[in-house]
């Protein structure tokens, strides 16, 4: 008997497009202190595609992102980035892959000893030594303008709101012009206008730079707007994966309940 994931995969987009996925999560299991968090996850994201990962709190959505960027390692299963399995990869080897990825943390994780501009400049200072100081400053200003914070360059992270911190985190994630963007609740704590601006920015990146994105969110409206596909997680498993319309038509009880409550 086919599992929900298998049915969803057959119905959904992952195998239909011939191009190779830039992120491929295959049968990944992850436990913490004997508590199963991810229970056989399979996901694929191609270039220019945005996948939204939804689910109840504590279902392992953030853990999934941390596994993809290599901050945690899966117990079993493989995670391939651009065709390279990152499980067990050394830190310096992983760094080469991470240079092509951007990560926005759930609570932004800004460096509290650096200014807003310093935070965004941090990856540039370490990886773009070919850029002059003034080029780096211009790039920082441009990135902060994209997220609507061009007037707050010299403020410290503690002096700005949570929503603004999120936007600085997003600007920092975009600093190295990543090919893959991992966003952990990018619109949480933002007002509807800022939230809409972030969604617009993600769509723009998808359109202009063909960035592959995985967005963990609780915001169904945002997921509908930015993502071509939505994966719904429950108890560490993908219950359904496909376009939003597919979720609407699903007969699975959890999916119906989730959509009703969202």
């Amino acid at each position, binding site marked *: 008997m086919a599992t929900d994931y298998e049915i969803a995969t057959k119905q959904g987009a992952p195998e239909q497009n011939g191009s190779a996925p830039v992120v491929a999560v295959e049968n990944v299991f992850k436990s913490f202190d004997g508590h199963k968090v991810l229970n056989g996850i399979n996901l694929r994201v191609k270039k220019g595609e945005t996948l939204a990962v939804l689910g109840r709190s504590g279902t392992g959505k953030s853990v999934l992102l*941390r596994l993809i*960027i*290599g*901050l945690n390692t899966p117990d079993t299963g493989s995670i391939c980035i651009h065709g390279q399995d990152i499980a067990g990869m050394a*830190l*310096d080897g*992983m*760094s*080469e*892959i*991470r*240079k092509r*990825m951007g*990560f926005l*943390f759930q*609570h932004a*994780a*800004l*460096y*509290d000893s650096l200014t807003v501009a310093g935070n965004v400049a*941090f*990856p540039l200072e*370490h*990886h773009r030594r070919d850029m002059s100081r003034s080029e780096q400053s211009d790039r920082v200003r441009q990135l902060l303008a994209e997220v609507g914070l061009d007037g707050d360059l010299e403020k410290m992270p503690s002096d700005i709101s949570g929503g603004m911190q999120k936007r600085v985190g997003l600007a*920092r994630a975009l600093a*190295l012009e990543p090919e893959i963007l991992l966003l952990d609740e990018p619109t949480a704590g933002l007002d509807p206008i800022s939230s809409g601006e972030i969604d617009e920015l993600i769509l723009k990146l998808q359109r202009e730079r063909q960035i592959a994105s995985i967005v963990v969110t609780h915001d169904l409206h945002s997921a509908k707007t930015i993502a071509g596909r939505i994966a719904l997680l429950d108890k560490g498993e993908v219950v359904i994966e496909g376009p939003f319309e597919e979720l609407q038509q699903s007969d699975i009880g959890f999916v119906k309940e989730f959509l009703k409550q969202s």
Partner: protein
Amino acid sequence: MSSSELTAATHINPQPPLRQTTQMPTVATSSSRLFNGFFEWFGELGIFSWRVLKAGVSPPYEGHELVRQLDEVGSKSLPLVAMAGSAIGVILSLEARYSLTRFGAKSMFPATLVYSVVQVMGPVITGLVVSGRVGAGMGAELASMKVTEQIDAIEASAINPYRLLAATRILACILMLPLLTLATDACAMMTGWFTQSLVEPLSFHQFISSGFKGATFNAFLPQTFKTAVYGLIIGLIACFQGMRTRGGAAGVGRAATNSVVLASLFLILADVVLVKFILVFFP
């Protein structure tokens, strides 16, 4: 005890056997947990040290961060070690003068003070003062970065946190401790001489030449440069405790406390080995 006696005893007082079976595993479990925790800590420290060493010797080198840490560990600790050294000089001067006068060896005062400061007090006092200031600071800073995911953010930005955060801090401690020790020694000798000269006028030149009379490099240099090992201990323990922190604000507090306590303890233990080592190899 026969089986019938055992049955009878159990019948009279059925509780003791039950208590034995429940208590013994508890004691055994907690002992084994303590034992495991002890070796786990050293195992993790070994892995951490290897990662830091590997990251520290391979490019890209974090020169800017190293300079920042040299300033943080060195320049900013200087006033503190200078004050500690000055106080030690006064104390040693008062104590030594009293004791040497009692035994009729007052002429030995400069040499006693110089040897006490350079060979024993200067290195240990510097180590303990820096352990308190820098160990707690580093432990708390890194722990706070850990619990707020800033270290993860560094790693996610394709920067090796062992290189950027740990290797630079440890190297700064290794380089700065001998220099700070020289500052402590100098301050202690100055105040020691000053205190003495208040009671019995003695020129500084005379004090120094008589204090270092017959001294060889072996008598002073190993004692000063052994503090590089103290620096290694302080930096390594503070970074290790900070970067393995869990559990929010309480975890940060624990990391800061543990950094100071463990660094000071290991520093004194290491001194036992280092003193013996120096006596054997630099007689």
